[in-house]
């Protein structure tokens, strides 16, 4: 697909680069509100479509990252409002708005990812497996228990151990980032 560039501030390839750079983080950001990954992906896709449609009005010098996060946030909030999907207003909204990307630069993210990998690798095999099934594959405790032929109590214990380890490993980042919460209006 090529773009007939008519003095538009954003061409097709820079749009693609923008998409690839931010898509995953935006999905992660949206998921704190909408919970399921497919909904989050749909929301982020729609935001990019909108951005593409209005690219003539968008100044690339402006903070496009902040535009994207604000749009994703608004759409996510609209979604949960319209669908009454938030499970808890207190836990999803009042304690929401965590934007990891706004808080770390690219090198910080890599450092963070290395730390996370390290922390996960340090876990006993079963524990890491359970955590990854829950966190990355969005499997329910019941499903994990069935798949690994263990009890739900054991699943809970593994999850608890994994999260405790991560908290310890990531605590420096948590403090460093805390001051920056809520920069998106």
């Amino acid at each position: 697909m090529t773009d007939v560039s008519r003095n538009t501030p954003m061409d097709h390839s820079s749009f693609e680069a923008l998409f690839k750079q931010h898509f995953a983080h935006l999905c992660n950001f949206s998921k704190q509100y909408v919970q399921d990954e497919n909904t989050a992906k749909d929301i982020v896709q729609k935001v990019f479509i909108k951005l593409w449609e209005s690219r003539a009005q968008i100044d690339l010098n402006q903070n496009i990252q902040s535009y994207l996060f604000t749009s994703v946030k608004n759409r996510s909030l609209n979604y949960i409002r319209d669908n009454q999907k938030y499970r808890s207003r207190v836990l999803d909204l009042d304690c929401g708005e965590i934007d990891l990307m706004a808080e770390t630069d690219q090198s910080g993210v890599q450092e963070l990812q290395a730390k996370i990998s390290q922390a996960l690798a340090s876990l006993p095999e079963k524990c890491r497996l359970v955590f990854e099934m829950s966190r990355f594959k969005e499997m329910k405790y019941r499903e994990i228990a069935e798949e690994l032929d263990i009890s739900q109590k054991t699943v809970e214990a593994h999850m608890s151990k994994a999260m405790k380890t991560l908290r310890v490993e990531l605590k420096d980042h948590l403090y460093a980032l805390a001051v920056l919460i809520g920069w998106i209006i």
Partner: protein
Amino acid sequence: MARNDIPEEILELMISYLSGNCGQAETTELEHWVSADAGHKAAFISFKKTWMMASLNAESNMNIDQEWKELSKSITSEGKTVSLAPRKSSRRSWLGIAAAFLVLTAASIWLYRSFDPSENIVAYSTESEAQNNQLPDGSTVSLNQFSSIRYSLSDKGTQRNVALEGDAFFDVKRDETKPFIIAAGKATIEVLGTSFYVDARKDAKHIEVIVKSGSVSVSSTGNKVILKAGEKARLNKTSGSLIASENTDLNYQSFTQQKLVFENTTLKEVVFAINRQYHSNIKISDPNLENCPLTATYTNKSLESVLAILKATLNLEIEQQDKEIVLTGVGC
């Protein structure tokens, strides 16, 4: 905030909530803990952050190129968008809907009224038509289809007691000496004089109370909320959670006026309002449709014509499957 302060059981609740394994009761428990103290809230936010950070590594699992391909399909170089992959749906006759509707309207109104000699007890019941009724105390109640109420004055005359099944709109005549108390499923609704709607349909997941004017107290097994005009309470029948919020439903009173108003309303809410009004069983087959916005006003329309207009406006397919009416379509 001391990091080690989170009790073990709360930690497990947090993980369970964030990973989508919490039931309503557990969610409420966690809400209470988080709301109890600013330190608790900070602890939860920090924990949630750890949870979100952990997924930074999962991003490599996401197929960004595939996502980009998806998006590329829906944008063109002219800046116009084309709709995302349309879904084909099998086209079956929906004449069954019309038939079901005829049966519904043909059904006779069944209404009975029984008085005790002092007119202190009355009972009303409806089938396929909504009905306005006046109670002995001067209050009015509009009963939706398939609903019933029984009104009685307590022995000493100090309380107006109402038992409700189904859904109804109440306009209660003010009498501060005799509270008006409605028992609706697990909910108890108490007012002095005000107008409000109660939805206690047996097959609904929630009992809802929406206040039009005045204030209303809603309670259930130890929980209690006081609602003002424009507010709504929702009692989850399974978990028992009782949550108050601002009301956004424009159509709770619509059965009394034969009118449905939608202003940029999502299809999901539209279907909820239609099902409530017509006691129909319409389902949306595809989650992509749920958010499609509709702006329309239906006055004195049959279910059949409401569906026909809906079909044309949102480009839907409608099919009758057993007792359900199923909506499918390409989305918006």
